[in-house]
């Protein structure tokens, strides 16, 4: 019996040890060396069309405008020749820009080495915070979504940039930013990031389907109005169901929007506010479960019926595949699909995973139904407060986001950075990249002007995730009202945990700063 007790005790101790080791302890963030870091590849590795574009960019990069932000950043960075900056960047295609173009070019110009630390999107936030909380210094430059700015600034992760901007930036470059994106860079009166990616949803539609005489006639007969790109969400549903009924037998559908968990809240944000919804009431109580919220979610659930089967699990790639294959009439998604639809850059090695386009020359662009596109996610660049080379890190991000360099980066097909400066929207070279590129730029600019910013207050990620869970639950059959009530409860709990008064002030500040880009 004693032996049994001993075995029992050993087993319990063993079990506790195993579970403790596995569950209880937050594993420390791996050091940068353990990340998927790669040395910057030479630009010479770029192949095909991208090679030409990148090479052209390098050639035109020299010399930068004297006295401009790029030139001043280069001079500043030369003081730090030999220093290595650790820069976080979203893993995969996003990182090809710094790996193949920006980092080697900056090193060539300044002698400062850039170590690109590729990180999955959702971990860009957690690794930055983990590093800061551990006393850090693992990163010098941080790539982050604008909605995280409040949390990162409040948490002390980001270094205020005002003094650097005052001393080193050509102030004309600030006014070159599209006014919408310029609103984002500050938090509580201080600048914590430089804008780097003009993400905005675009509605892409098949012009040839809309211009087809039979389609036009049949649609008019059914709905007693002209077949045209939808301007309201009701029109979107009608056009979508019309094309789906017409093409389903051939595996063609009227529309598709990615509905899988993770980002589906962005389309709710867009449609909800276009319908007149507000995130919070005057007492900072969640209002997403208002009548407008319930109607929005109900409409989203109903819209799934006209989309391809299994749409609830479709992400960006599934939509891209079906769209490029020519199987969809309309999609609402990020700007790169517009470029790829025309085959721009698809010859490059970096984009060889993108399906070949069957829709080149057949695509039209518009802002989303309701007249307001979501300014979905985007990217900013900041300096880590724990960096040992803050000035060099700042010099790098000033150079990257300067009109000259960013103007080149938004034209590199695999860079995934979208226009955000007036000089980008008005770039005659960009307008010549494919036959209707000027129309594309016009819609992106209109989207930025009338777009709706993601909710950017402390706890933004938690609010987004709670809403996202509610939406996917509704897709799976949960009553939209019940799903949103639960999400609203979670939102209120988040608000109370962070502090009702401080959240009220942050929300008021967000609305004031963003103005019509917060609510139309």
């Amino acid at each position, binding site marked *: 019996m004693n032996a049994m007790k001993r075995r*029992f005790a050993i087993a319990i101790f063993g079990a506790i040890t195993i579970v403790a080791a596995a569950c*209880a302890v937050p594993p420390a963030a791996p050091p940068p060396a353990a990340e998927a870091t790669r040395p910057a590849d030479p630009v010479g590795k770029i192949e095909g069309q991208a090679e030409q574009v990148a090479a052209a960019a390098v050639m035109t990069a020299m010399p930068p405008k004297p006295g401009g932000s790029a030139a001043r950043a280069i001079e500043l960075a030369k003081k730090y020749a030999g220093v290595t900056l650790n820069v976080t960047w979203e893993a995969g295609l996003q990182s090809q820009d710094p790996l193949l173009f920006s980092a080697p070019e900056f090193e060539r110009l300044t002698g400062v080495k850039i170590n690109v630390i590729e990180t999955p999107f959702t971990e860009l936030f957690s690794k930055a915070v983990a590093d800061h909380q551990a006393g850090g210094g693992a990163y010098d430059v941080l790539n982050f979504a604008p909605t995280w700015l409040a949390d990162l600034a409040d*948490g002390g992760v980001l270094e205020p940039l005002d003094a650097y901007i005052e001393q080193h930036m050509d102030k004309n470059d600030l006014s070159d930013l599209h006014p919408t994106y310029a609103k984002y860079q500050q938090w509580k009166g201080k600048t914590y990031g430089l804008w780097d990616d003009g993400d905005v949803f675009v509605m892409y539609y098949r012009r040839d389907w809309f211009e087809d005489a039979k389609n036009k006639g049949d649609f008019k007969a059914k709905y007693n109005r002209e077949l045209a790109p939808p301007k309201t969400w009701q029109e979107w549903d009608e056009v979508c169901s019309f094309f789906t009924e017409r093409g389903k037998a051939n595996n063609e559908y009227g529309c598709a929007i990615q509905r899988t968990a993770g980002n589906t809240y962005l389309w709710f944000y867009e449609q909800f506010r276009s319908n007149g919804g507000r995130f919070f009431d005057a007492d900072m109580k969640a209002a997403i479960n208002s009548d407008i919220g319930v109607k929005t979610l109900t409409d989203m659930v109903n819209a799934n019926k006209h989309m391809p089967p*299994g749409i*609830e699990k479709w992400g960006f790639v599934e939509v891209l595949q079906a769209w490029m294959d020519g199987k969809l009439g309309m999609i609402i998604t990020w700007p790169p699909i517009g470029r790829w639809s025309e085959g721009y850059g698809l010859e490059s090695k970096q984009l060889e995973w993108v399906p070949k386009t069957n829709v080149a020359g057949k695509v039209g662009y518009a802002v989303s139904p309701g007249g307001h596109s979501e300014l979905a996610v985007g990217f900013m660049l900041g300096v880590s407060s724990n960096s040992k080379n803050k000035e060099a890190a700042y010099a790098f991000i000033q150079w990257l986001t300067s009109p000259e360099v960013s103007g080149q980066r938004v034209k590199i097909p695999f860079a995934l950075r979208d226009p955000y400066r007036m000089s980008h929207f008005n770039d005659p070279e960009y307008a010549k990249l494919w036959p209707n590129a000027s129309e594309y730029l016009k819609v992106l600019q209109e989207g930025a002007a009338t777009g709706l910013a993601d909710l950017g207050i402390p706890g933004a990620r938690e609010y987004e995730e709670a809403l996202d869970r509610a939406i996917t639950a509704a897709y799976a059959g949960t009553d939209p009202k019940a799903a949103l009530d639960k999400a609203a409860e979670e939102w209120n709990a988040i608000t109370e945990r962070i502090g009702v008064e401080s959240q009220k002030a942050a929300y008021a500040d967000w609305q004031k700063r963003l103005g019509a880009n917060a609510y139309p």
Partner: protein
Amino acid sequence: MTLQHRARNKRNGGKYALVAPATLMILCIALFPLLYAIVVSFQNIDARTPVGAFVGFKNYFDALRDARFWNALGNTALIVAVCVTAELVLGFILAQTLVSHLPGKRFITPLLILPVVIAPLIVGYTWRMLWDTQYGPINQVLGWITGRPVEIVWLANPVKVWPAIFITEVWQWTPFMFLVLLAGLAAINPEYREAAEIDGASSWQVLRFVTLPLVWPVMAVAILFRALDAFKVFDIVFALTNGGPGTMTETVSLYAYSVGFRNFRISYMAALTLILIAIVSVAITVLWRRMSANQERRA
């Protein structure tokens, strides 16, 4: 002190020196973090508050009132109960079949073990493609069988998502159970079975009264290991559903990951996991006692 005593002390000193590195390592990687996690669980560390203040049992009370935590715990318990049972039954059948000299055994056994050596995340993403509504082979095969297009949305339906998770999990981990039970069955002296058969016992009686009692000690350990492992299930569910739709398939590990590493509520995550340890410890204690009692009765 006699020479004998000195020699014994010297021998013991040598033993302690030998186990010291392992003990130290266990203390460093398990005990210290566990104690640190306990300290953190009484603070309020999050993304905005890197240096936490003492908040007493607040995180524990919040966790006990957290419906999402209990939902995740229920989902985890369901996965443990269904999958470990299925793996045990299937693993035992396979082991029983292959323990005898079956033709092709040398070829079949390594093949059966293959799933267990694949990283669970890869298994999850692979099966996610298999379960795909439009292009997944599973719906296609069902379509061939039924003679009409099958468009089952496996991974976004609150009911159908469970078989998808169970089958994926069972596919990966049955080989583990099979391997352990095969070793257990191979170690049984065949004379016991032969004696029972000579005494006129049927196949079922041999299995029930000879094989199972003899293999039980090995089986109990296998169940314990798999139950503990299944309780931590993360990768496969993460890849298949990420806990969705909503939180319908969220497991405790996924929830803790979400709280700790997506929302950075470090103290709350520490409290959640410590509650989990308490629950698992109690469950393991009860399970082990029952298993030990069964073994003693049989002995």
